[in-house]
């Protein structure tokens, strides 16, 4: 099989060449640079336009503060904003953690039996489609501990994408691979461990990215509801409070912090997704053209 070996060696050589991607490609470098520069440029232009509009029209700061005023409010109000931010972030992540445990756990249970799935899935949908804003006041009435009530609200919103995505993922294992596992007499546990769970990972991570944002929204909505009842300490409560006091620059600062938190959560899970999938999943593979 001499020709054979030669072919293998050629393939190996090819592979080594491929591994050393051309980092000095000027077109590639320009693209990477533009990828960062363009969004920043858009942001800067928007801020300048905002500032200009406020200055030219002489809009009073209690209606629309300019970006510099918002930044100033953020610095001055940091002592109240930071603890509030921490409260909101804590609720968001705790709710997300419980949603992951509950969603993945339930999805795994669904994967064990079609009948369990058929019995429970409609109620998961009911939970999802009921607007959180409508049930938050009830939850706040029934649950004495505000912190736990907020957690429940955020959990309700974050739970469903994880459950439905993970369920879909567990069921999307390749049929031929399932046959292969059957051929080799794999146990139910082995099918789950070596086939269904890895197949579900990209779906789960997609759900997690959605749930991260939703969990923040759930926390904020619940805080608003709690805030109107006079109890609260999170960022949303600060927004309410500054609204009452017509401290619009501080309100904008709090709003900016919430948005920033949401973006950071998104980036965090995108990075996690990339970390876990970049070796094999289509969504995370950079094509070398």
């Amino acid at each position, binding site marked *: 099989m001499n020709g054979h070996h030669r072919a293998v060696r050629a393939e190996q050589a090819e592979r080594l060449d491929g591994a050393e991607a051309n980092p000095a490609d000027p077109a590639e470098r320009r693209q990477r640079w533009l990828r960062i520069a363009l969004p920043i440029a858009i942001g800067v232009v928007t801020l300048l336009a905002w500032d200009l509009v406020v200055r030219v029209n002489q809009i009073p700061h209690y209606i629309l503060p300019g970006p510099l005023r918002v930044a100033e409010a953020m610095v001055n109000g940091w002592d109240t904003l930071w603890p509030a931010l921490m409260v909101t972030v804590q609720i968001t992540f705790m709710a997300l953690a419980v949603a992951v445990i509950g969603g993945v756990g339930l999805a795994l249970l669904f994967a064990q039996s079609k009948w369990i799935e058929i019995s429970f899935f409609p109620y998961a949908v009911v939970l999802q489609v009921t607007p959180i804003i409508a049930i938050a006041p009830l939850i706040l009435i029934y649950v004495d501990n505000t912190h736990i009530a907020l957690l429940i609200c955020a959990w309700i919103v974050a739970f469903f994408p994880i459950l439905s995505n993970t369920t879909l993922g567990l069921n999307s294992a390749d049929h031929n691979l399932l*046959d292969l596992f059957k051929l080799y007499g794999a146990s139910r546990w082995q099918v789950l461990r070596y086939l269904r769970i890895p197949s579900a990972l990209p779906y789960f991570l997609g759900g997690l990215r959605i749930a991260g944002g939703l969990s923040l929204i759930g926390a904020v909505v619940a805080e608003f509801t709690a805030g109107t009842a006079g109890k609260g300490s999170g960022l949303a409560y600060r927004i309410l409070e500054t609204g009452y006091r017509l401290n619009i620059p501080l309100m904008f600062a709090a709003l900016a912090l919430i948005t920033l938190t949401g973006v950071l959560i998104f980036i965090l899970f995108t990075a996690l997704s990339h970390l876990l999938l970049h070796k094999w999943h289509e969504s995370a593979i950079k094509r070398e053209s």
Partner: protein
Amino acid sequence: MRAPAAQSAAAAAAVTIGADTPPPPAATRPLVRMAHVSKRFGNGVLALRDLDLDIGRHEFVSLLGPSGCGKSTALRLIAGLTSPSSGAIDWPERATLAPATDIGFVFQEPTLMPWASVFDNVNLPLKLQRRAPAAGGGTAMEVDAALAMVGLTGFERAYPRELSGGMKMRVSIARALVTRPRLLLMDEPFAALDEITRVKLNNDLLELWHSQSWTVVFVTHSVYESVYLSNRIVVMAARPGRIVAEHVVDAPYPRDEEFRTSPRYNEHCRIVSRSLALAMEGM
């Protein structure tokens, strides 16, 4: 219907071709015996009707037929991945043979786990069977041996996406070989490959089959491929799926390019093509 008579004439003619060479390995007790096997799917499709087929030890049998004639279904029945609606599939030597460890299946697509390296993909059957590593060996050695057989030594740590179509197919074959199965079931394994790769893999497969004393059941669309590889070709027709002719290719092994260009090869191809044409005409 005049087709059946013509078909059996074709089959009879086939057996007499090249009678000067030794006959194919005679099967005293077949490895697998399918008797009166029918398969009707839940949607009412009769995929196979009254199939009688013996697979002898160390045979290389090709199933050849038009699309939808039940070739894949037959293969899946042999592997035990689906059960017949009527009839029986017997393993006469069952006592000495654990079917799960003794069948290798190669699907039409590579069917690799994209999240696992080549090594882990090939190691999968061993892991699932939780086999104690052979004395002094270990599963790593068995995997290495299987990869060496298909010429993929050095690619253990690559991921499927880094491989070409032909290489993926070879990984899939290595995975089927790693348990050293007695029966290798292959469902159009080379259908998606280019001519050159296909010829090369054909030769590699023949060499392995010859040296490892396997039994192979090989599904294909290609008359030329089936004549080159097999010592017996089973021609099937569709609607309902059934066997219409059998053809023995009695050319000796090893076969090579010389055989592929010989008049005798052409003669076999011509006869098999004719049975196939008749099978399709009867549809």
